[in-house]
């Protein structure tokens, strides 16, 4: 598998020829099922583009079974990502909570972090959660915030994959698991030295002569 994503570059330099756009063309025109609340597919918006399969090169190889998953989805029915990796409440829970111990397979992988950052912008996560995940329409995902559904790797995976009731879409029917793990890896890196493409600080105020009138 060749490395298709270039070394970290500012988001502003991303353009249409980027291979990530293949993934996006796939997804453009697909309504998100979480909005309908029940069915796995929604109406295509006007101008929808036909959806080829997610290219293997973008997804990072064929879908593999994730470490630590308790169940194997039946082939051909539930999309591979659309099954929780974290604990399901119930009397069957024994021993250690896998949510607190499960690792992100992309821990300490700088190129995965960079891809996660690019996905965060390209999949419009930034539009809801803020340009650098500081919140807005959706909640702050940076370390200063308490996550409603937990911020362990498995919790992040499930929130992205399954969606949440106040408007977080269920991306698991659209994104393969390792793409979701890369997004989770980016979230995990926020506020650390490893956070890619950190935000530039805002200017304190505009220069005095920059606009008129002045009062």
């Amino acid at each position: 598998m060749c490395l298709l994503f270039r070394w970290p570059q500012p988001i502003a330099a991303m353009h249409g020829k980027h291979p990530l756009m293949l993934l996006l063309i796939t997804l453009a025109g697909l309504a998100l099922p979480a909005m309908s609340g029940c069915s796995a597919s929604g109406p295509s918006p006007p101008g929808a583009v036909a959806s080829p399969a997610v290219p293997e090169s973008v997804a990072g190889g064929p879908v593999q079974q994730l470490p630590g998953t308790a169940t194997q989805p039946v082939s051909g029915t539930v999309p591979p990502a659309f099954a929780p990796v974290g604990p399901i409440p119930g009397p069957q829970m024994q021993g250690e909570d896998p949510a607190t111990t499960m690792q992100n397979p992309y821990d300490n992988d700088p190129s995965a972090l960079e891809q996660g950052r690019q996905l965060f912008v390209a999949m419009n996560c930034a539009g809801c959660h803020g340009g650098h995940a500081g919140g807005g329409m959706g909640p702050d995902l940076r370390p200063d915030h308490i996550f409603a559904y937990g911020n362990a790797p498995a919790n992040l995976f499930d929130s992205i994959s399954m969606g949440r009731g106040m408007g977080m879409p269920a991306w698991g029917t659209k994104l393969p698991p390792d793409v979701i793990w890369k997004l989770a890896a980016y979230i995990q890196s926020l506020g650390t030295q490893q956070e890619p493409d950190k935000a530039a600080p805002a200017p304190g105020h505009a220069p005095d002569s920059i606009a008129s009138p002045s009062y």
Partner: protein
Amino acid sequence: MANDGRRRLTRWALTAVTFTALALAGPAAFSQSSVSSPPPPTAEGAPTPKQLNPLPTAANIHTVAPLADGQWTVPAGDEANTRFSPLKQINATNVAGLKVVTTMADGIPHGWEGQPLVVGDTMYVVTPYPDKLIAIDLKAPHGPVKWIYSPNPDPKSQGVACCDVVNRGAVYADGKIIYNLLDVETVAVDAKTGKQVWRTRLGSIRDGTTMTMAPLAVNDKVFVGNSGNELGTRGWITALNVSDGSIAWRAYSTGTDKDCLIGPDFKPYYAKDRGKDLGVTTWPPGQWKIGGGAVWGWISYDPETKLIYYGDGNPGTWNPTQRPGANKWSNTIFARNPDTGQAVWAFQEDAHDAWDYDTTIENILIDMPWHGRMRKLLIHPGRMGFVQVFDRTNGQLLSAEKYVPVNWARSYSLETGLPDEDPAYRPHVNATTSNICPSSTGGKDWNPTAFDPQTGLVYIQAHNVCMTDTPHKANYIAGTPYLGADVTMFPGPGGWEGALIAWDVADARPVWTLEETKLPLFGGVLATGGNLVFYGTLDGWFRAVDARTGQVLWQFKTSSGIVGEPMTFVGPDGKQYIAVYAGIGGWLPAAALPSVSDTDPTAALGTVGAVPDIKKYTAPGGVLYVFAL
């Protein structure tokens, strides 16, 4: 301003203030020529206004839909959107004695935009999501709740609202309280019983649409509009029949003339707004379907010209390079026939918008002398930083002057209606443009002004915020943001962040300003016959100021920043009351919410840096305040 001019004006201002103080002291001051009451003192700790220009003459000003009998049945008070009440029991001489008579928490930690209605003996308040309607009994002391209507809108709509889960209020019509729900429905509730009369679904959150605006009712119809310009919605205004909520007509903001209800009656004043199917031809193929132009602001009505006036919002995306063309009819003021929806005139504020300067700002309708002769005016204190004055019979632009620091355009041509843009401040894809003024939140946002026919001034809660803007390619995924820019905002030049600006409409210049140095302003304004102007700050101060001079005569520290619109009414006991919501939230103040981080200057669509340290000044939590003497 030249030094000698400033000295002359200072002398004039001092004379004006003294004269005004004497006038306000009441008739006694004139009957005893040797004795005059001292002017009321400035409220302790309150800011002092900056005097800039003399007051205008303010004669022959005619309000077209004056408020009557102490009620407040329309969101803006009056259909012409002056937010002026003639009530004067509370006035400049006695307002220092204003006290809280009751409070009510809404239990919701989100921005409480909008205003209560008062119909008969009942006050009606609409809360932010979950959009409850609460009826308050004004006959009993301290206003107990009569009933609560809980519509339970779809919880997923919370994740689709761009700018907090706000609701700007209801309208009263035909025995019903009518308002919008976040999940794209309009409801009508029986004003006496609190029972739902009808509920109409108007669209779906699945394509990024929500509803937050306050409707307006005219004759047998109620007008509502959608939100969602940052999610690729297609904007519209819809007329529902008040009796049963059925759809009477819908005018889209983009698409064919047929879809936009543009037909033989349509006579735009300027050539730039003339042509066939401009709502399609000024876009790349198909782009108009996700082109924005949502109608999420205020609607005005003139019962004399019998037209409704409103503006729509920005085109989607914030990356203009993705949508070459004028992008009609985004950012356009429309005049329409309320019965048929047919457009009579239109004026697009800025073609091919690159700054998110929504044109949904209120349009104040007033008849007054303009350069020597009476004219039917439309005052639009625009988001793009200019106060525009139009002839509302035909859409002719009569004046456009900057009211805050602006650099994206130098001026507007009255001949062509086009802004003279400065290309240095127009963002382009994959490039960073710095120090654009005003920011996307504008010289002011949706938060409404008030016009006082006694002074001829429009009172503007203005921001002074500038921004850095980096557009990038936006990807359309239905139901998610279709944004396409990183924006970072920060205070503008001159050392002030917000100001209540008293703007002389006739002379197109400010008379006085009351500046805020810590935070911008993002609430509404009320003007009254008592020579008072009421407004609230983002750190929770609710103030009454002298309408002529800006002197702060009374202020009260409420529990949370104010983004609500003050209103006034006469209670069943014949007393005048003032009411306002406190409860910080909304777009510009979003960093006050716990769900927004101080550590990301691009969070909340870039507003974090515009409200530095706001978490130290206020926290969310809605409370209704009612005041009286």
